[in-house]
């Protein structure tokens, strides 16, 4: 059963679910590298929800659902934006994109976690990390 936290579309307010999830990650005894990976993926997903999904609109919200167990960390981040097509996001590691200041978030989530799945037309991302 996933726990749910809804926060205003604000990067400071969005630290609350991050801190709660990381506290559970620590309680469950995950290593520092795993905590780093979860924190990075959460920051990227929440920033995407705030900036690209909700377009920095303070009247919108970000919904975070999560479960931390001995076996895995599972998180869903939902925004209220129009969605997007993940496959249309350019690969930031290609030479022609290296100089672009933006566009590395999805790539980093995929590099650090075991599962990164987009749903609801890009309005939701599901993140899973299994205990190593």
């Amino acid at each position, binding site marked *: 059963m996933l726990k749910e936290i809804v926060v205003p579309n604000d990067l400071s307010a969005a630290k609350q679910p991050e801190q709660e999830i990381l506290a559970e990650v620590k309680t469950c005894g995950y290593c520092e590298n795993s905590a*780093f990976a*979860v924190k*990075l993926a959460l*920051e*990227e997903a929440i920033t995407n929800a705030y900036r690209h999904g909700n377009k920095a609109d303070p009247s919108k919200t970000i919904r975070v659902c999560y479960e931390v167990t001995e076996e895995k960390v599972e998180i869903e981040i939902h925004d209220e934006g129009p969605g997007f097509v993940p496959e249309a996001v350019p690969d*930031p590691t290609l030479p022609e994109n290296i100089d672009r200041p933006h566009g*590395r978030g999805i790539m980093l989530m995929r590099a650090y976690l075991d599962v990164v799945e987009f749903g609801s037309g890009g309005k939701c991302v599901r993140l899973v990390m299994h205990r190593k």
Partner: protein
Amino acid sequence: MHETPFAVNVEKRGDAAVVFVSGSCTMNVSKKLTDCLRELGGAGHKLIVVETSELDFIESSGLGGIVAGYLRTRMHKGEMRLVSPTPDIRRLLEMTRLV
């Protein structure tokens, strides 16, 4: 993972500037790094050194700030170097092919 206070301190040494970046560069503070490096990049320094030995976390907006600062520095005929990253930060830079 413990989050440490984020700080950006600049020391100017002749034509050069050293930027000491420390703590956790998270989503709600990374703009501070971006603004600092953009401003320095446009100020005509021949060399900007970004010292990261005390930086324990950075997300993609912060990385983007470094890229934006680098581009601005280069546009103004200067050079930017990022030095002393911790293993976690070096891994991030390598994954994103920024080093």
